[in-house]
């Protein structure tokens, strides 16, 4: 990023290529729609591009990048015409332009009943995610999927570590509640 700040355009291209898949993935998890996820990811990198002259290496670049992505996602949530839709897998399958792009989740599971169970579980998780507040969703995804520490997540969403701890706990509580029936009440 410092190289790009000094005018090295190739450096930005390298950053984009290295991180784009992660950012698209994060935005997809956050908003639930592939097309919107890509728009949000592009917006994230455009902001990085524009913010380069003001960039100061106070934290890891990846932490800063996800902070921007989180801001973009939270802004999307605050829009009056909020486009967030965690769609069911059935609906996704009905949309021919987007469905083929989803990776098949049933890795190594060729048995139809196993695949059905897995799809049902994914449905429950998606529904639970849709019920989380914007900050809960961001904190949970940043922790569980991106492996950021509570301190880093606090920097990213502008909250204290204790607040992050509460956000993650509440997010997990909703997820475990949603999956409770699926796991026979063990969750």
């Amino acid at each position: 990023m410092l190289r790009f700040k000094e005018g090295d355009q190739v450096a930005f291209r390298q950053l984009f290529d290295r991180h784009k898949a992660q950012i698209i993935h994060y935005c997809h998890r956050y908003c639930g729609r592939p097309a919107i996820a890509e728009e949000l990811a592009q917006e994230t990198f455009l902001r990085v591009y524009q913010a380069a002259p003001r960039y100061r290496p106070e934290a890891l670049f990846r932490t800063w990048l996800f902070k921007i992505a989180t801001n973009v996602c939270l802004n999307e949530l605050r829009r009056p015409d909020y486009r967030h839709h965690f769609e069911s897998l059935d609906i996704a399958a009905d949309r021919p332009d987007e469905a083929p792009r989803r990776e098949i989740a049933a890795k190594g599971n060729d048995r139809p009943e196993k695949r059905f169970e897995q799809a049902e579980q994914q449905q429950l998780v998606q529904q639970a995610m849709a019920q989380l507040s914007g900050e809960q969703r961001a904190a949970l995804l940043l922790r569980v999927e991106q492996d950021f520490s509570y301190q880093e997540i606090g920097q990213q969403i502008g909250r204290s570590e204790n607040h992050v701890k509460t956000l993650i706990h509440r997010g997990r509580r909703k997820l475990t509640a949603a999956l409770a029936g699926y796991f026979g009440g063990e969750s």
Partner: protein
Amino acid sequence: MTTPCPKDETLSAFFDQALSPLQLDQVREHLAGCLACRHKHAGLHRADAALRELPGLTVSPGFDGAFWAKVAALDESRRAPSWWRRFPVGWRPLLVAGLAAGVVAALFFGRPGAPAPTAEEVYLSENLELFSNYELLRQMDVLEHWDAAQNQQKQG
């Protein structure tokens, strides 16, 4: 006898190893003797695993092209000459000072322009002497309908 069950929030933080070393030891020790908390802990593990197992997304073929087009458009808008950018850098403070002086002068010496007079106002001002004579005006009212009065007289 095991220690009291930790709060769910503490258990969640323990799961993330986000507690102090002392707290981590305490929770670990508690879990060893508490089946209920071990179940809760296992539930957290399953919830995280379920989240990670959601279907992923492959990058669409047009993603890169669309992004670099946006970057090109942004660069183009930055390069577009504006009156400010065309002004030599060394002269810019002078320009700002000049504009500021202009604004100050307009605020102190400028007066809002009076609206243009209407046709009636112009007529009034041109015939001020006439309209100040009340008796004459009364007669004018009669004279204005002089033809109609004459016709009535003839018919009568």
